[in-house]
């Protein structure tokens, strides 16, 4: 099922899913609000963070080269991939050369874009997710429903059953400490025997060639420290110019995401293990993934999409996301950021429904820590989806153009430009409007979810004349 409007009712009629999301999003919204209680401090910090990302986007090509040069000088191998297929091939090549049979993974949305786990399993390499949420959905063979909290759609009971079915020696328990301890036991052995660790990157610092990763569990640190080989995956936009930009971005990211002043761990990696050091990977690779981002970059307005630091605040505050959950969007990035990013990465011809799954209420715009004008971009993409030839910025532009809609608007335009046509049409509707069945073509889509309006017996002009107004 490809269309959002077909999937949404299924989610809306699932009371468990509705409850799970409502509870989680309410909690996240109030925790975030408490973190930014001082409006002046929020405004100053947000402006600093937004401009840091705006500068990084404006200078993207030279910063990528600087990052590459710095990383290389620090001993990190840098790879470039135009497509997810290329990125998968690069990762596989590195792993095969090292003879790796098992990788342990920290959370990475880019790896979800690549469908890396599936790809590696197809080549005989086992990929184990180690973030607790990712581990849970890997057991359930599901995709993340949120970019920060991947298993937020599941409740305790569902997770308890999943663990009882999959972990040897563990009975059904809803005790969160017991569930967490069970995951620790299983995954600790996986860490100890993994041949490589794979992670994402939250911020890459061009000035120093440093990869910054934030997390609470310690699985990210383990994945990037214990195995002999570390492969980091990042989208080409995840850059900061200088180390100076890291502090404001670190102050915005966890507070916006989970309402925490700081994550338990901020892990800054600048090189592989140096001579004399006792641990850390012997080799570190960085894979830079484009996958449509450089096309987004071509358009000056759409380019703002690339500021995103993936905090998830937009989805936490979205009235649509909260009600339908992340899986309804079908693609890797759900919620408002997904609605603007997915059609640009995948094309409007296959994700053109996404920008329409919004009320344009502006809640996402108000909380975005890097000031992405999400509502403007949603409107722009809606326009692109019905105007072929408007610009070449987005793949599949005009793919949602329909003859019905075009003709309706042409008719509307004609009516409003010609007073005689307007008078004729309104008088006709006043006399005959109530005779048109609700299921008539053109009207059906509107009346499928609304009561058909009742037409008054006289037009506004006729009523005005009756009251004695002869000229408008």
């Amino acid at each position, binding site marked *: 099922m490809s269309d959002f409007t077909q999937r949404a009712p299924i989610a809306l009629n699932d009371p468990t899913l509705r409850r799970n999301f409502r509870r*989680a999003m309410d909690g*996240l919204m109030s925790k975030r609000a408490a973190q930014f209680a001082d409006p002046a401090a929020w405004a*100053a*910090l947000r402006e*600093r963070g937004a*401009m840091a990302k*705006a*500068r990084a986007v*404006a200078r993207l090509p030279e910063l*990528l*080269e600087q990052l590459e040069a710095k990383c290389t000088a620090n001993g990190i191998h840098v790879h470039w*991939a135009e497509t997810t297929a*290329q990125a998968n091939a690069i990762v596989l090549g590195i792993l095969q050369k090292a003879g790796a049979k098992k990788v342990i993974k920290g959370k990475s949305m880019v790896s979800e874009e690549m469908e890396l786990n599936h790809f590696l399993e197809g080549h005989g390499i086992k990929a184990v997710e180690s973030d*607790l949420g990712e581990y*849970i959905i890997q057991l359930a063979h599901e995709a993340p429903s949120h970019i920060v*909290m*991947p*298993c937020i759609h599941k*409740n305790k009971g569902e997770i308890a059953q999943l663990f009882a079915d999959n972990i040897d020696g563990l009975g059904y328990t809803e005790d*969160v400490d017991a*569930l*967490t*301890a069970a995951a*620790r036991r299983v*995954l*600790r052995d996986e860490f*100890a025997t993994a041949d490589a660790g794979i992670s994402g990157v939250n911020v890459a610092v061009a*000035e120093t060639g440093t990869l910054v990763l934030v997390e*609470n*569990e*310690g*699985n990210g*640190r383990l994945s990037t*420290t*214990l195995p*002999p080989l570390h492969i980091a995956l990042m989208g*080409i936009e995840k850059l900061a110019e200088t*180390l*100076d930009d890291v*502090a404001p971005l*670190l102050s915005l990211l966890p507070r916006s995401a989970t309402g925490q*002043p*700081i994550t*338990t*761990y901020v892990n*800054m*990696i*600048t*090189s592989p*293990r140096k001579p*004399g*050091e006792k*641990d*850390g990977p012997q080799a570190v690779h960085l894979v830079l993934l*484009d996958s449509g981002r450089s096309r987004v*970059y*071509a*358009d*000056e307005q759409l*380019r703002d999409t690339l500021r995103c630091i993936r905090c998830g605040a937009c989805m936490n505050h979205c009235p649509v996301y909260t009600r339908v959950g992340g899986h309804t969007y079908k693609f890797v990035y759900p919620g408002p950021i997904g609605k603007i990013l997915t059609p640009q990465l995948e094309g409007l011809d296959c994700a053109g429904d996404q920008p329409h799954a919004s009320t344009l209420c502006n809640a996402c715009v108000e909380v975005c820590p890097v000031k992405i004008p999400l509502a403007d971009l949603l409107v722009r993409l809606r326009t692109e989806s019905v105007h072929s030839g408007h610009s070449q910025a987005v793949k599949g532009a005009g793919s949602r153009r329909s003859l019905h809609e075009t003709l309706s608007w042409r008719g509307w335009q004609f009516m409003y430009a010609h007073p005689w046509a307007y008078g004729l049409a309104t008088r006709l509707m006043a006399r005959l409007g109530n005779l048109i069945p609700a299921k008539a073509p053109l009207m059906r889509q509107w009346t499928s979810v609304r009561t058909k309006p009742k037409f008054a017996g006289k037009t506004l002009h006729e009523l005005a004349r009756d009251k004695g107004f002869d000229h408008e």
Partner: protein
Amino acid sequence: MSETARANILGRLRAARRTSIPALPAWDAPAYAVDERIGRFCQLLETLHAEVHRVTEAGWPQQLRTVLAGRAASLMVAPETESGRRLAADWSQDAPRLVPYDRPVEEMKTTLVHGVDAGLTTAVAGIAETGTLVLWPDAAEPRLLSLLPPIHVALVRASTVVDNLPELMRDQGWSSRMPTNVVLVSGPSKTADIEQTLAYGVHGPKELVVLVIED
């Protein structure tokens, strides 16, 4: 493949119309009065589920033994560090067994992953704004010492506690001397992935003990 990809990606980015580069607005991270700083640092760490003890330079080894009594049978230390040397020279028989992290991880994996109860590291600084320890692992003090044992004990000198991260980065000139790895630690390992219920010790230490040395 990577070379062609690089040329194509950079080519597309360069072909796009340039926009002006916005100026960076001024922003100051929060600062605190001198007499508030340490109090805030300790209090925030406790809020973040850490156990904080304020100790003296002379008395911290004794305090460490007291803290670990009944909780840990073994303590892993970095023998080439100042704190490691001091403990080796002055440690009692009834205290937890000292295990030196003195060989590459490949030779010590089993001990590290399953065999020790606690690990001791020294923080290079503390940050009052967020209740954060700054770890700067090196050849003498390995990275996994603060990560694999279920209890992480960190020493931090009160004089090294600063207001915020930007100040620390500037004062210590980080941008010209980033090491292999820097870690900011704010509390024990935790997760809220199951119904937003906090649980500690999911992968890293379940307990974080901070000894603040008054100097």
